[in-house]
């Protein structure tokens, strides 16, 4: 449906004198407040001036230019694009939660604290690590907070020489970035041809300077690091800590626990595993769980229970402090809580089972026409490769992705992880049906046989096609200007 209405930039729709939100007149006696002249502006900022219908049409029409879970299959690997339950949105709107100020007295937030305490307990149980902080704002901040914890722990133990953080080459970019930001030096560990951590490479890089090994398990290839126990022993043997990037927890809920397979710390992506939702790129929530000996260093506060009463415990002298203001991303933790309570112990495990089932089924279907470099079974996702198309028709993985859009499918994650050429990383999640997987696989297979030009110039049915990224980066236009 052609729909050109009100999708100019909001600034271009501005019309002097138009208004949307209006304010009441002041009901207090007019104070001739004398703010010093150098504090005040001569005019308010030059914001756009539009009416309410302009605003609604503009943003409503813009929204229709997005694909999303509620309208499309969205098998974006590593992102766990599972269904976002509508009940969460309704419940999050309850005024008793939505209108709580973050600095209210504990006595007035007992329901909220009970919920957060519950969430702490569930995350502890699922990870098998006994202490938790709900504070980090996203997965990446969870990594950072945990590395701060590790640094504080090493400092406390007088081991400030442990300056290295080891990261597999298949790791997500946030891992090395967090390591650098936390003052560590990132060292890359190679993956073997089986897609798993190369134990030899690891051995050569372990040493007295080893601080933390950040491992993703299942890893970003969707493979379970079956040597994880050995790896943990090696790292622990060298005096280092194991950090588990928990982005892929969706594969193992109730099946295996990071604490049980050797991790000392982990983060969760509540917006992934516990169906956030994603919000077009956030907010997230990245709680961390850690072993007992690391607990004192966690960011404060933590919710604790004293009989029937819950309270925020700030009395943590060894705490690293804070990684953000206020308690955490409540909105996402709240939805995560609803999700855990809805699924319950059996539902969580079943979710992982079906996530893995769906991934393996899709993998089998995709393998009918694409390389799938690593042997199965995979966990919740897998990485295929478009390299055969590349060799023959000079069609790249990105072209396949763009063409998928034409058929009403969001693209898989592309060119990640870096260890697979022309990578197409697919994570169907457990909330998709076999019919959807089949229809998607059929499309993916059909695309392979299309005229290469059809793919290289795709998409053909979207509002834009192949925006010029080079140009965008070369002469960056990052804001509208008159």
């Amino acid at each position, binding site marked *: 449906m052609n729909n050109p209405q009100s999708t100019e930039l*909001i600034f271009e729709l501005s019309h002097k004198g138009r208004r*949307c*939100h209006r304010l009441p007149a002041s009901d*207090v006696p007019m104070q001739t407040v004398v*703010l*010093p002249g150098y*504090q005040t*502006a001569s005019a308010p900022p030059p*914001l*756009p001036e*539009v009416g309410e219908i302009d605003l*609604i049409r503009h*943003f409503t029409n813009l929204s*229709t230019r997005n694909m*999303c879970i*509620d309208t499309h299959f969205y098998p974006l690997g590593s992102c766990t694009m599972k269904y*976002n339950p509508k009940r969460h949105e309704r419940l999050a709107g*309850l005024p008793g939660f939505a*209108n*709580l*100020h*973050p600095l*209210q007295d504990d006595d007035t937030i007992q*329901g909220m604290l009970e919920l957060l305490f519950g969430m702490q307990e569930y995350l502890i149980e699922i990870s098998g690590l006994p202490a938790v902080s709900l504070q980090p*704002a996203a997965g990446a901040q969870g990594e950072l907070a945990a590395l701060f914890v590790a*640094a504080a722990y090493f400092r406390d133990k007088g081991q400030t020489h442990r300056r290295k953080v080891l990261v597999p080459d298949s790791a997500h*970019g946030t891992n*090395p970035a967090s390591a*650098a930001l936390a*003052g560590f030096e990132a060292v890359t560990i190679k993956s073997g041809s089986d897609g798993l951590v190369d134990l030899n490479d690891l051995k050569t890089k372990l040493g007295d300077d080893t601080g933390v090994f950040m491992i993703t398990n299942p890893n970003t290839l969707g*493979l*379970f690091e079956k040597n994880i*126990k050995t790896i943990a022993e090696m790292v622990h043997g060298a005096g280092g800590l194991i950090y588990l990037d928990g982005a892929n927890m969706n594969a193992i809920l*109730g099946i295996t*626990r990071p604490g049980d397979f050797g991790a000392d710390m982990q983060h969760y992506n509540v917006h992934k595993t516990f169906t956030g939702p994603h919000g*077009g*790129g*956030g*907010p997230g929530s990245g709680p961390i769980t850690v072993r007992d000996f690391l607990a004192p260093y966690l960011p404060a506060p933590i919710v604790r229970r004293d009989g029937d009463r819950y309270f925020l415990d700030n009395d943590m002298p060894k705490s690293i*402090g804070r990684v*953000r*203001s*206020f*308690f955490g991303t409540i909105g996402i933790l709240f939805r995560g809580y609803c999700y855990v309570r*809805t699924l*319950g*112990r059996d539902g*969580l495990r079943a979710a992982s089972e079906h996530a893995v089932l769906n991934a393996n089924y899709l*993998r*089998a279907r995709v393998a009918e026409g694409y390389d799938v470099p690593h042997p199965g079974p995979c966990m919740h996702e897998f990485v295929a490769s478009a390299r055969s198309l590349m060799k023959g028709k000079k069609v790249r993985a990105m072209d396949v992705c*763009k063409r998928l*859009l034409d058929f009403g499918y969001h693209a898989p994650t592309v060119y990640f992880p870096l260890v697979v050429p022309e990578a197409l990383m697919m994570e169907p999640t*457990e909330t998709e049906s076999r019919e959807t997987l089949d229809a998607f696989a059929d499309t993916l297979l059909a695309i392979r046989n299309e005229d290469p030009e059809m793919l290289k*110039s795709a998409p053909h049915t979207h*509002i*834009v096609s192949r*925006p*010029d*990224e080079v140009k*965008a980066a070369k002469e960056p236009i990052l804001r509208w200007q008159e």
Partner: protein
Amino acid sequence: MPYLLNTEADIAEMLARIGAASIDDLFAPIPSELRLQRPLAIPPGMDEITLTEHMSTLARKNQSASDAVCFLGGGAYDHFVPSVVDVIASRSENYTAYTPYQAEASQGTLQCVFEYQTLMCQLAGMDVANASLYEGGSAVAEAVLMALSFTGRTGEVLIAESVHPEYRLTLETYLANLNCKVRTLPTPDGVLNPDDVAKAVNDQTVAVVAQSPNFFGHLEEMEAIGVQAKKAGALFIASFDPVSMGILKRPGDYGADIAVAEGQGLGVPLGFGGPYLGILACKKEFLRKIPGRLVGQTTDRNGVRSWVLTLQAHEQHIARNRATSNICTNQSLLALRATVHLTALGPQGLKETAELCLQKSHYAASELCKIPGVSMMSATPFFKEFTIRVGGDAKEVLKRLRAEGYHAGLATGQWYPNRKDCITIAVTEKRTREEIDGLAAKLASVLKA
């Protein structure tokens, strides 16, 4: 099982196609000794009716800003959120999409972020703004990291004691492992004295950080502070209140290099502290140091104006350990809320909102200060929040006021031990004269008792 689609019959067929005998077989790569041999110690699941009842019960155990009159601030304010903000943010297309990696499938999000970036520049008087940070505290830390990288200095970061205590703590946490010390400049008068800045800076000073309105609600002499920072070649980082921009001078206009803010006041519900919105905008010379995501304008292969994620070379997924920051998921949906909110307000609405905050808070201050024993902590100007002395233990006073139905303010002494008799009070455009008068009456009677 909730949300699962495949039935036993489906499963059987799928397993057959995979070539596995059971779902359990698919987990073969996980060594059996690592498997959890018992069910998780988590309660059984709940249907929607039961969950609704459960959550409603929990909600009733809270006394929210809808149940008591809210004068709490300290970085989170009970501003009105126009209904249009909720409507747009709750569109499926906005909240169930991922980061706009596939530009063609995400032009809606991308254009909104581009608009957001522009609005933030307009709001702060800056050249460039990023696509969002987590919240106001880590935004301060990220700004300081930018300054570290830009200046290449290894001296101190100076931060006013009047900056939000949780922002300061966040900054300290972020810098604890880096080659740089944070020094807090005392603010005994409730505001930072620019002369103290002059005395503290040197040629290794990385940045000077101040916040106005500050944690006590009072206005700092930002221009003068900035002058001192710059004299020493340090960057001047300003933490500001977006709502105050309706009447106050903008960071870009008073000389800040980097402006950061907590964006909660722009259409984000209180929500017990999150998700909120970290705003970061700066002068163009710092463009390449900006953390996180940026959306840029370009044209597509048919010449159509379009939007893409850009300058990703400095982001974690490309630059990895050399990235400007580790941020991946940011606060996109909150940036959208702020975009819609500011569009709804427009220049006039922002101005009127700010004026109402100014008028009502000053009325409240003058009414409260009529009560014997109550006085202003500082005589300096303020915007929508201010701090009073009540002559006794503020915590006790606040407890009594809670019993009367008022979240009357913050016990300033929680963060400033030498101010145990102080209450910091925020008055937004939503507060009515009746509520303010009610507070004054109750405070008077509590203090008399």
